[in-house]
């Protein structure tokens, strides 16, 4: 498991305005729609640019900060579990109006999230979903055989622990609050955030102290 600073959303095409090779029809279609909407004044180019930057530079790191606060501040955790959106707003995060349900892992219950409809995901906390989250196989199987799916991510949940799968939708997103690992006593929120990965907040892995 990579650290959260580099685990996610890596643009493997490098920092340039076009991908290698000839553009596909859909790429051309997307760019043409964008240009038409800009010409007609529906949107402007700055909105697209700043949104791209935000997805790379800001959104993916919000989730670990929020969960590190929850691990450090019991009162904040209670507020987060009671109302994810208002708790995040109190933390200074604009949650873009979606309802956020934080589900807490305990010694008795492990939580995992999916969107069987499409790819609804807590983007305001985690940025873009990873490829597998959008894959047909994950969406098909995790609701039917979550323990087998978790094993494919290297996560073995004992039979004595209940596994709950939460199916997201356009208006309601979930985030998992993992259990704080042993060996992290006295850690700062920054240090805690460093071991909180996207995959752990989706529920397919567990955070570790090292």
């Amino acid at each position, binding site marked *: 498991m990579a650290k959260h600073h580099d685990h996610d959303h890596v643009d493997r095409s490098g920092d340039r305005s076009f991908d290698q090779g000839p553009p596909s029809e859909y790429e051309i279609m997307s760019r043409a729609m964008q240009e038409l909407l800009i010409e007609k004044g529906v949107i402007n180019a700055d909105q697209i640019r700043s949104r791209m930057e935000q997805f*790379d530079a800001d959104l993916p790191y919000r989730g670990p900060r929020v969960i590190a606060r929850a691990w450090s501040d019991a009162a904040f955790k209670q507020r987060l579990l009671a109302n994810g959106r208002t708790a995040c707003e109190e933390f200074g995060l604009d949650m873009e109006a979606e309802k956020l349900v934080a589900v807490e892992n305990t010694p008795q219950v492990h939580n995992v999230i999916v969107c069987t409809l499409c790819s609804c995901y807590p983007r305001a906390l985690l940025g873009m979903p990873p490829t597998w989250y959008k894959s047909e196989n994950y969406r098909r199987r995790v609701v039917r055989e979550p323990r087998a799916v978790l094993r494919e991510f290297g996560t073995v949940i004992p039979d004595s622990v209940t596994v709950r799968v939460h199916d997201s939708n356009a208006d309601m997103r979930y985030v998992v609050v993992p259990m704080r690992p042993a060996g992290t006593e006295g850690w700062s929120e920054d240090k805690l955030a460093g071991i909180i990965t996207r995959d752990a907040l989706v529920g397919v892995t567990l955070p570790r102290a090292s």
Partner: protein
Amino acid sequence: MGGEPGGPIDTADHGMKFWEKQANALRNTLTRRKVVRLDELRRAAEDLGDNYLKLEYFERTTHALRVVLLERGFFTEAELTAKMAEVRKRHG
């Protein structure tokens, strides 16, 4: 598709191409500004039927955006065709 049988999951994250990031930012800007709604985009994607699984994720979302923007009259089919020809020429 939830609950249907499926094969092994590729647990690697393959990241996003530049055009996918741009397409995502476009869709996101439009939903955030309430120009289009997520539900109608999903409906347009599901109307693909058997073709749904033949397209990659951002091809599907781009298709859905095209359907909804045309329905809403933000541009016409002819305008889009002409603009696509222009873009193709520029980058081809």
